[in-house]
Every structure is written in structure tokens, then in C-alpha cells.
């Protein structure tokens, strides 16, 4: 493809970078990224991927926009309250950049639909807010060998990690099984600083762009932890666990399961 004059202007600051250039920008325009969640993390991740010109962004969420979301979910607005989040975010992202096709998937991922959905994409970004989805996405990405960028936030702290299945660690190497329902507070119970998902989402989007461009070192075998109150980043090594139930030498998880029972399912 040839760039149009408006694309040359839009992406000029990318094209100038030796690590991106016209070739890298074309990779971004040809890339397909699946974004799980159109909430606190999904909004900034999708916003920056759209701005960067990632050509296809699949967006999965089953929720509608509520007033209480708007303190942090920047792709939605007062005028889209009540609208499905995937639809509200699609409008925002496509308005920012008409080069981008946002595939709005209103619904929830489960063991029966996830493999077919992620098959269509080059990489997956997890911006979900619950453990059942987090583990399901991890297991599906390991089994399908899809790179996965995973982020999480609570109160004033967030974390990001990048999983390259069978090369680096997976989420279960880090935390083998989901915590029991009720043990871990949700954002609803514990609160979250509105800007925090912006920081963590921007880091997730950065990891995704690096993978698409083939530049730099992803957060493979590492977990990056950000604390907003102390304004500090901590990078922790995460080795692969040879006994990991999904990516280890003798995996016990060879097909997907759902972990929904007992969890609060807030948006």
C-alpha cells in the first residue's frame, strides 16, 4: 500500500523514528489486536492503539456505560451513558482515526467462544477486571500460542506483564490458580484512582506496539509494578514454572474451563 498525504501527516512522527519508519507504520496498519474489556484499561489502550494506526481492534465487553465509569473510562462520555461500552468506544476510536476498524463484540468471553475469537487476531491485550476472564484469556492464549499483554489495577497500584507462550512465563507461572471468590476486593469495593488505568493502559499499549513492530524487549519473564503514591516502578523477574499447569512440561490444563462461579461480575 502507498500512504495517502493525510496518512503521511498523521503518522509523520512515527515515520521519522528509525525503529518505526514507513515499514513499521504499515505493520501497525495491518495489525489485528483483540482488546478484552472496554473499561478503565481498555479505554486508554484502545485510544492509543487507534491513534497509532493499529488497523483492526477487536473489542469485547458485555457492559453498558454508567455514570460511575466516567471518572476513569475516557473513551466513554456523559452522552453515551446507557450505550454498550463496545459501541461507545468504537465511536470514539474511529472518530480519532478513520484508518482503524473497531470490531465491537458485545458479550463475554467463555471457554466455548474464546478460541474462535482470538484466532482472528495477532495478539491479545487483557484489560479485564476479574479473575475468571484473566485466567480464561491466559489459558486460551497459551493453548493458541498468542502473545498476550496483561494489565491490572487496584487503588493506587497497577501491574503489567507480557506473555509470549512457551517462550516466557504465563499468568499461571506467576499465580497458579485464581484466588477464592471474595478474598480479593474489586474496584467497586476498594476504589481506584481515575488516572491509574491511564498509566497502566499506556504501558500495555506500548508493549503491544513493540510486539507488532518487533522492536525492543517486551516484559517477557517480568512483571512491572507501578505505585502511584510513591511514584515508583518496580520490575520483578518472573521465571517460567516448569510445573505450570498450563505451559509447564506436563500440563494438567489441556482444554479450557470457565471459573465464573461465585465471582462478582462488575463492569
Amino acid at each position, binding site marked *: 500500500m502507498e*500512504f495517502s498525504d493525510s496518512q*503521511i*501527516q498523521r503518522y*509523520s*512522527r512515527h*515515520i*521519522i523514528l*528509525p525503529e518505526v*519508519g*514507513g*515499514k513499521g507504520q504499515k505493520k501497525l496498519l495491518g495489525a489485528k489486536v483483540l482488546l478484552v474489556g472496554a473499561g478503565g484499561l481498555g479505554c486508554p489502550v484502545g485510544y492509543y492503539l487507534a491513534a497509532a494506526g493499529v488497523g483492526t481492534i477487536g473489542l469485547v465487553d458485555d457492559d453498558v456505560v454508567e455514570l460511575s465509569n466516567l471518572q476513569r473510562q475516557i473513551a466513554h462520555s456523559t452522552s453515551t451513558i446507557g450505550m454498550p461500552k463496545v459501541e461507545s468506544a468504537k465511536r470514539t476510536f474511529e472518530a480519532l482515526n478513520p484508518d482503524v476498524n473497531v470490531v465491537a463484540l458485545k458479550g463475554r468471553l467463555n471457554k466455548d467462544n474464546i478460541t474462535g475469537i482470538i484466532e482472528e487476531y495477532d495478539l491479545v491485550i487483557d484489560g479485564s477486571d476479574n479473575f475468571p476472564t484473566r485466567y480464561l484469556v491466559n489459558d486460551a492464549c497459551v493453548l493458541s500460542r498468542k502473545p498476550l499483554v496483561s494489565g491490572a489495577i487496584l487503588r493506587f497500584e497497577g501491574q503489567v506483564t507480557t506473555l509470549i507462550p512457551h517462550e516466557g512465563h504465563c499468568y499461571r507461572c506467576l499465580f497458579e490458580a485464581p484466588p477464592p471468590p471474595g478474598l480479593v476486593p474489586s474496584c467497586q469495593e476498594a476504589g481506584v484512582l481515575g488516572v491509574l488505568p491511564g498509566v497502566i493502559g499506556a504501558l500495555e499499549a506500548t508493549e503491544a506496539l513493540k510486539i507488532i513492530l518487533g522492536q525492543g524487549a517486551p516484559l517477557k519473564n517480568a512483571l512491572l509494578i507501578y505505585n502511584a503514591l510513591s511514584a515508583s516502578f518496580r520490575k520483578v523477574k518472573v521465571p517460567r514454572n516448569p510445573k505450570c499447569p498450563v505451559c509447564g512440561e506436563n500440563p494438567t490444563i489441556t482444554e479450557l474451563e470457565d471459573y465464573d462461579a461465585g465471582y462478582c461480575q462488575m463492569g
Partner: protein
Amino acid sequence: MPEEVSNPMEEAERMENAGQKRNLDIRGLVCPYTFVKAKLAIEDMELGEVLEIVLDYPEAVHNIPKSMQDHGQKVLKVEQTGPKEWIIVVRKEKD
């Protein structure tokens, strides 16, 4: 800095393409689009090929050669050809 060891395959490609010239007219454009256009043209070329750029934006007369060198390309010539017109000749050395 150690001398860069040239790859025999790349060297062969350079020899094969040596002397082939492309032209790019960016008169009327200002920074950073002057360099953006020049860079896109270079990306589409083969190693060893030469690009002759005609421009009329004075600032770019300094900026393009500097950026091209930073990106590993060889600037062969910078010449004023009119009261407000210059040509810059660059050889592609790096993909």
C-alpha cells in the same frame, strides 16, 4: 567506534544497484514532511541506489542531510541550484 564490517551479500547488492538514481521533488513542503517524504522514498529503494532530492525549504537543507546520516545513509552532495532551490543526493546504505 569499530569499523562496521560489511556484509558480502549487502555489498553485492550495493554494487548491482550502484549508479541507479531516483528523483524526489519536495518543493513546497516544510519540515518535518520534507524528511518524512525523503525517508519513505529511501525505504522503497534498494541498497546502493541514489536519491536526488529537489527542495526549497531552507531549514531542510541542513536537517535532511543530518537525519539521513543519523539513519545510516550516505549524503553524497548538497548543492544550491537557484536563489531558493537546492539538491541533496543521498545513497542508500542501510535498510
